[in-house]
């Protein structure tokens, strides 16, 4: 049985806003009976204020599909359609206290039904970008189609490249065989044979280092700290998209202590993420930087103190 949060179970056992809304002026249908889940979202939108006054759902699907539908209706009621359009599938999943990776498509279905319903309200045609294909990487919820498209678009050849571009395969490694099958199939389309020992693509030429990096040691302490903060700030949106975050806790010499939070905390890829941050800082500052999780600060401090004597 899936490890559903209490909120998922609560919304499944006691769904809110079940059924079609009377006098609905917006309806969004997504999914199909062959796919195993389908959602019809109906909304009553006040045409004067654009506020969603009522929302109802009819769902064919599993526990998390029903819970996601219920959560969606609760989230969007009282919002304007513009505000509602900002609701992401992550918002639905977070509202439910998280969903198993294999079930994230239920939250995606909720968001798509919302987009479809609002398009219907506005008299527009809705463009489907529904995930297709089997879920290959369960650690990071990456499906077959995304992997295929990424291989084609970026001319990828190796498992490591697929992991770098999509995260798929970066966790427990159970999907490596599946990814390699997709690689073999897509490469065969263009007459190539998948070679597990192939060298990765040549890395693009690095951007010229910023002035600060070309002149190490020229920054004042204050400028250096600001620079580190700026680099971290530039990385944060990427982490936040995956439900995580990072913050600088302390800078001690060439060691930067950081706190990984949200999905990044305890993530199987945390050490890779930390390495990536370290690389970015080194490239930007042009000096050797060690990035260490703040949890290790306590252990590191006495040694540093001893070194000072």
């Amino acid at each position, binding site marked *: 049985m899936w490890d559903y949060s209490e909120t998922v179970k609560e919304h499944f056992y006691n769904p809110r806003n079940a059924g079609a809304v009377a006098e609905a002026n917006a309806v969004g249908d997504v999914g199909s009976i062959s796919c*195993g889940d389908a959602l019809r979202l109906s909304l009553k939108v006040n045409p004067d204020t654009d506020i969603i006054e009522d929302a109802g759902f009819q769902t064919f699907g599993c526990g998390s599909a029903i819970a996601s539908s219920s959560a969606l209706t609760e989230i969007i009621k009282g919002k304007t359609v513009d505000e509602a359009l900002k609701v992401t599938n992550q918002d639905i999943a977070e509202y439910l206290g998280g969903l198993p990776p294999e079930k994230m498509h239920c939250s995606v279905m909720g968001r798509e039904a919302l987009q479809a319903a609002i398009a219907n309200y506005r008299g527009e045609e809705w463009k489907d970008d529904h995930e297709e294909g089997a879920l290959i990487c369960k650690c990071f919820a990456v499906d077959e189609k995304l992997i295929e498209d990424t291989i084609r678009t970026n001319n990828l050849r190796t498992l490591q490249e697929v992991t770098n571009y999509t995260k798929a395969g970066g966790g427990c490694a159970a999907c490596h065989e599946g990814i390699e099958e997709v690689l073999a199939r897509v490469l065969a389309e263009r007459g190539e044979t998948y070679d597990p020992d192939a060298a990765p693509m040549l890395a693009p030429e690095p951007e010229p280092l910023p002035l600060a990096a070309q002149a190490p040691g020229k920054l004042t302490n204050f400028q250096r700290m600001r620079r580190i903060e700026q680099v971290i700030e530039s990385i944060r949106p990427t982490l936040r998209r995956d439900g995580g975050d990072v913050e600088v806790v302390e800078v001690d010499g060439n060691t930067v202590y950081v706190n990984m939070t949200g999905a990044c905390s305890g993530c199987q890829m945390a050490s890779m993420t930390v390495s990536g941050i370290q690389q970015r800082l080194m490239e930007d500052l042009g000096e050797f930087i060690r990035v260490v999780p703040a949890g290790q600060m306590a252990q590191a401090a006495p040694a540093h103190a001893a070194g000072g004597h």
Partner: protein
Amino acid sequence: MADIYLDNNATTACDLAVVDAMLPYFTEQFGNPSSIHRYADGVAKGIAKARRQIQALLGAQHDSEIIFTACGTESDNTAILSALKCYPNRKEIITTTVEHPAVLNLCKQLEKEDYTVHYLKVDGKGRLDMEEYRSLLTPNVAIVSVMWANNETGTLFPVVEMAELANAAGVQFHTDAVQAVGKVAMDLKATKIDMLSLSGHKLHAPKGIGVLYLKRGSRFRPLLRGGHQERGRRAGTENAASIVGLGVACEQAMQHMTYENTHVKALRDRLEAGILAAVPHAFVTGDPDNRLPNTANIAFEYVEGEAILMLLNKQGIAASSGSACTSGSLEPSHVMRAMDIPYTAAHGTIRFSLSRYNTTEEIDRVIAAVPPLIAQLRKLSPYWGENGPVADPEKAFAPVYA
């Protein structure tokens, strides 16, 4: 109120007599049966006794035809890979579209290694086309691997007859009998079955113990090589406690075989009749005239299996589903798809699998519990209107995409 367990095709509770028999093998009888000191004697004798108990249940001619493995999957893999090694010039395998993944996934892998796998199709009731089977039996085939009973529907395949045909064609025959052992009377010495797989935890023995029956004289190559255990046919120190437990479980299964096929079957039929009488748009899948006595696979149209299971679970009722959402895949059970069960029903199949421990009172509680929860889910379903299913659900609910 006590919970009700109706998922015995997934696994069974250990029989208390099995547990009692096993306990000394964790403490007093802990020796390695291959050793020559006194600590080994009792263990070796325990294993020998278990071998005879299993031989008796299977109707095997010799106790040496019993090879202990870790599970049904290992037995299935060993049987198929052994045949391919024994007959390296034969590059074809015959199996069915509804096998357990232990066979299907191995076959898919073998296809990548340039073997040709013939998947026998089934009809709407899960039955094989014997003419198709006959036509595929050629000297190019290394092995036929066909399950005795299907794990989802309980449908029985005519494996004894199929083994005769394979034998006449000079082809080894293996059957995955994991679901059938203990429920179907077997007399392997009177058949042409070369190999048979069974798994302990499906018949009230513990998990982690299986058997590969290998008919004397059948060509064989081991999967695991190492020590001389099991006459060199499966290396690795024996899982002695579980082997002893499996022996007792087989003895118990023999004693309860009639009960399984009368009392348990009657309970299963009562469950099916009770549910179908109260729930419209529901039907039993598989071959109603030729299936395991304990298995009822019921399709509930217009609702999804995992949601049904969650509501059942809340009421303390354990069953299972071929629903895609239970496994995290997008396709419903390959067995339902092979039988061409329409999508309106394939996603909502629930397997109730009984055991000799179930009671009439339990079954009546399930009969009472199921109809309201199906109605509850149908009320949420876009495919269910005020008075029943909407007309032509595929068209009635067709998202409009740009």
